[in-house]
């Protein structure tokens, strides 16, 4: 599965080998994992004392052995436990009514998941029917823009429509991205609310047996309009150049399939779609590259619209764009309060890459292939030592001046993470003051 990845990594000269993981993980967990900000994030400033120790963590060990319901009293216990167990993967679960560790001692009905960040999982495999470059777990620079578009669209909606302030985007280490929405009210959302938000954000609907997955109605919802504007910016580069969706016979056919064949029930009359499909086919046969054809199509659809032929399907070309570019969320992950999701900063066991936070402001420049692997990082630490110019190394007994992560290419990611946690702390600082005010009242 990781073939594509392995090739990429070899190019970087520090090839990651799965078999090295047991040796590398101790170094990573000992010296690089950012426990400080990580704990700060998940304890949310300790406003609610029990918040951190009622949080479920789940470890995956070698050979896919899961250990669920782990929980820790504080940062040092978490550190110790992670370094003892050396998990291949860490998942974060919900905040429960009791310490997850003790879940067996509590009455069955009483142990309940109470809160969790609202999470989103976008996975490149869900785009297989609209990617012409790779499939399955593989990704390349030609399809990565899909993730960029997805982040932009979902982030905008979460920010502008729902007013969520604290959104952490994380690269999943291989082929997708995760989002953690951490506002206080968001963490308390019910399953119904989570489902509703996820559905609000889902436009591409249907499985393998539903070819045309998008149908838009007049008038277009403002949120979709905003999304369309974002996608428009990527059309030329992504859709026409990188994916070249109308470039070959096969690809063209695939697009035209989105204008479904005649309705069997209306066999006598040709339906709108079929007529349109034929016109567009003719347009495409006039030649030119994807963009030329597309422009011709725009003109055709406009004139068809003017002739009032498109009442039932007001946005045929928009629908193509939505089907090809609009984010495809895994709704089932977002729905449940109790759903586990891979933690930021753990290592993807198959690629060795770190699940690093993504800076949304700079998402266009995020390169998944530049994300450090655990092998690179460990090498970087070693190389740093060897550089004679660095004055901090000789005094390990004193307080570490330069933290290990700063010696590596992980620095940028940790900084992004720190920025996010700092943003969060504004929230709980306000909360603390409020609380102490209340106490001061009497």
């Amino acid at each position, binding site marked *: 599965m990781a073939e594509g990845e392995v090739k990429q990594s070899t190019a970087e000269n520090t090839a990651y080998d799965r078999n090295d993981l047991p040796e590398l993980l101790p170094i990573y967990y000992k010296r690089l994992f950012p426990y400080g900000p990580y704990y700060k994030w998940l304890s949310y400033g300790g406003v609610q004392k029990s918040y951190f120790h009622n949080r479920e963590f789940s470890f995956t060990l070698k050979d896919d052995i899961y250990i669920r319901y782990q929980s820790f009293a504080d940062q040092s216990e978490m550190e110790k436990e992670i370094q003892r167990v050396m998990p291949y993967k860490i998942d974060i679960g919900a905040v429960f009514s009791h310490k997850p560790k003790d879940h067996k001692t509590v009455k069955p009905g009483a142990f309940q998941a109470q809160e969790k960040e609202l999470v989103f999982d976008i996975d490149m495999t869900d785009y297989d029917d609209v990617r012409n470059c790779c499939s399955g777990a593989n990704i390349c620079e030609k399809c990565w823009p899909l993730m960029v578009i997805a982040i932009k669209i979902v982030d905008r909606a979460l920010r*502008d429509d729902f007013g969520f302030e604290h959104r952490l985007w994380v690269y999943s280490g291989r082929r997708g991205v995760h989002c953690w929405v951490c506002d206080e009210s968001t963490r308390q959302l019910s399953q119904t609310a989570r489902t509703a938000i996820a559905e609000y954000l889902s436009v591409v609907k249907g*499985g393998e047996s539903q070819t045309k997955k998008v149908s838009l109605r007049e008038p277009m919802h403002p949120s979709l309009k905003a999304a369309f504007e974002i996608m428009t910016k990527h059309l030329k580069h992504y859709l026409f150049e990188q994916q070249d969706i109308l470039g070959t016979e096969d690809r063209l056919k695939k697009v035209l399939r989105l204008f479904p064949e005649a309705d069997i029930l209306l066999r006598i009359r040709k339906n709108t779609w079929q007529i349109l499909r034929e016109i567009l086919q003719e347009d495409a046969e006039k030649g030119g590259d994807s963009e030329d054809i597309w422009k011709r199509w725009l003109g055709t659809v406009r004139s068809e619209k003017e002739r009032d032929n498109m009442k039932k399907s007001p946005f045929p070309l928009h629908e193509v764009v939505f089907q090809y570019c609009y984010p495809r969320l895994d709704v089932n992950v977002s729905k449940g309060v109790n759903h586990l999701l891979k933690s930021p900063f753990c290592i993807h066991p198959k690629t060795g890459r770190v699940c690093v936070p993504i800076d949304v402001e700079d998402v266009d420049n995020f390169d998944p292939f530049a994300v450090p692997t655990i092998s690179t990082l460990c090498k970087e630490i070693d190389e740093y030592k060897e550089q004679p110019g660095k004055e901090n190394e000789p005094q390990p007994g004193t307080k570490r001046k330069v933290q290990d992560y700063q010696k590596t290419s992980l620095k940028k990611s940790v900084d992004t993470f720190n920025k996010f946690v700092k943003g969060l702390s504004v929230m709980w600082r306000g909360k603390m003051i409020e609380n102490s005010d209340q106490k001061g009242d009497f």
Partner: protein
Amino acid sequence: MTFYISPPKGNVSLQRLQSSCCQRVAFLKEVFARGRDLSKLSELTFLCNTVERSDCLIEGSRIDQASHFTLRLACCQDAVMSHFLLEAETTLFWYRFSCMAKKQLLHLFHKIRKYEKKLRDQQAEIGKSNRDLQTEKRFQVLLEVVTSLSRNGSKWEKMIQSYLHCTDSHLPEVRVNPADYRTDLTTQYCTLHCHARGTETTSLDLEKRTQRDTHHGASEEMTFLKVPFQYALQLISLRRVCVHKGFAYVHCIYLPDVVANIFEECLRIGIELARKVVLSLSDPRMQEMFRLLRLQFFEDGCRGDEGVVFDTISPHEVDRLVDFFPPCMAHLHRTLRHKHRLKHFSRLQYTLFLKDLGLPVQEAVDFWQQEYSKPACRDGCTHHWARDGRRYTYNIRHLYGLEGSRINYRSHCCQGILERILQPGEEGGCPFRHFDQKHLQQLLAAEGADTAAQNRLVSMVTNQKPQEACQVYLLYKMQTTLLKGTGDLQRCAPLTRCPPSHVDLGIMESSRHPSSTGDTLSDAIISTRLITTSSCSNCGNLLDKNSSNGIVSPTGSVDLIHDACLPPPAKQSRLRDVHTNISDLQLTGETDHKCEELIDKRASFEYGSEKHGVGKDKETPVLTYHHEQGNATKDAGIETCQECGRVMSDCDAGLSGQEQCNVHAVCSDAPRTDSNFTSGCILRSGRIRKPLDFTRALLRLLERRKDQSTCEMV
């Protein structure tokens, strides 16, 4: 109008409380099954069995409150029950709210405001009380939403006015189809704003607009409510409202939905609170009552364990059984055989189906290993048994309740499959819901349905009736199986003589190539099914001409009912459970052929005729016997089931075809008239609730044929 904020004080007899709680559960189940649909809910008020014992439901009455709060305690410890209570009570609230007149609405609002004020006063003296602060605070926040809709009383009044205006002036349409009507309306308003806005954000415009409305009185009346998005969730998931910075701008016609959402939130808090309280509740009498309520709740739910179909089947027998699979599972099977891989959820769905069919765990592992050891036909999937076998084995064993939390999972029910949102590339789901026309036709063609049937089914699907379509398809399939061979016996004969395992294949073959008679006849049946709109009062299924009957229900009104649904004489119930071995299904030997021929002739005659009557008795002597039986059942129409002692139509009615009483299902296993042959098999379980019901029905049909042929021989 009641929000059920604080429980009533006083005494009530245990017996009264218990009976009213039971009634409430029964009623809420009806409500739950109907959902937020005005016309369907109104029906409820005309049903005698709900009205008769509904004193616990008179809104605001003491016993109404008492039963509500007791149910909170009874349900709070179980996730499924809590969800049910939340959903059903909210729907009930929604219905009550939708029915309210202006005066009541105003009264409700004043009450909420008073309570909110009380809470705020209490908040002032926080330190002194030992109350659960957090909960109180959340309550307050919630109620503030309502009151903030109306800082001054007049605004609320205006809101109500424009709400009533909107609903009243369009009352007929609302009654006919509330959902569509509302969509149109919002769309209309949305359009209005889309035109009005510049290019940036509609929602901002809306905000301005609402503000303007507040300031300048109602120039265009109060059309929009600005509420935190949590209170407009259904509308949000359908993208029917504009959302901006966490606030939804909701058209006033949705007022009931918004207030119902607030109610739901209050109830959610209430249930949480109950969860804390119930642990300290040690009165054994209460515990006993909760136990009974639990029993009542689960007696007919999806949880009912129907057991496996076969004692045991082996992996290679799966291929032969595919013909008995519902289209959803047959599709998964073919996809698996073709691509050698299934995506996660599809795999889960199919594994559980096979499990309930009778595939033992080790055989299941072998079955999946066999496929997953082949190279994937779908590009992309690089999983392989050699590398991931451990994980797959674990997953399978997990589903069989042998790993992890050791839950013995049952196969998914149709509702769950229907509601699932498929990921792109996922093959599962319900073909009648998740497939587009082209794919559905392909699937039906692969299943062996002829073009006419395909077209009919596709048209049903476009009418958004996936479950009914599946039922019609089952009927069609039964007919093609039944009618397969008046002229085709020769072709079947060599197959039947084969070792038992090959016989099913014969049937499969013949149903793939139905005889011409089969075509037209089944066609006719399907069309009658489509045309008749009246449905059986017992099972809720469509009636066709062949199998309808008027019977006098206990209420004195004449109900249309399937012959098959008529209470059969409490006779032999030897088919109590179809725990048979696969070999039992085989039809072997020359003698059976004759019987088959007889059955087939008779069946085709029956299906072709308008109504079964005395005239036919000459043709097939067996029919006389069955006809008599038919009379007997008719006489028994108003009687009680001998096994359980409940009035038949009473306890079997409604509730989306779910069986409320197992005994009835068993009773109905007794032989029936031939014309009910097929329909009886479907209707036994009311409706296809699980994909396995489809298979069960087909297998029963086959078994019945075998029984009948032996019977005739005797």
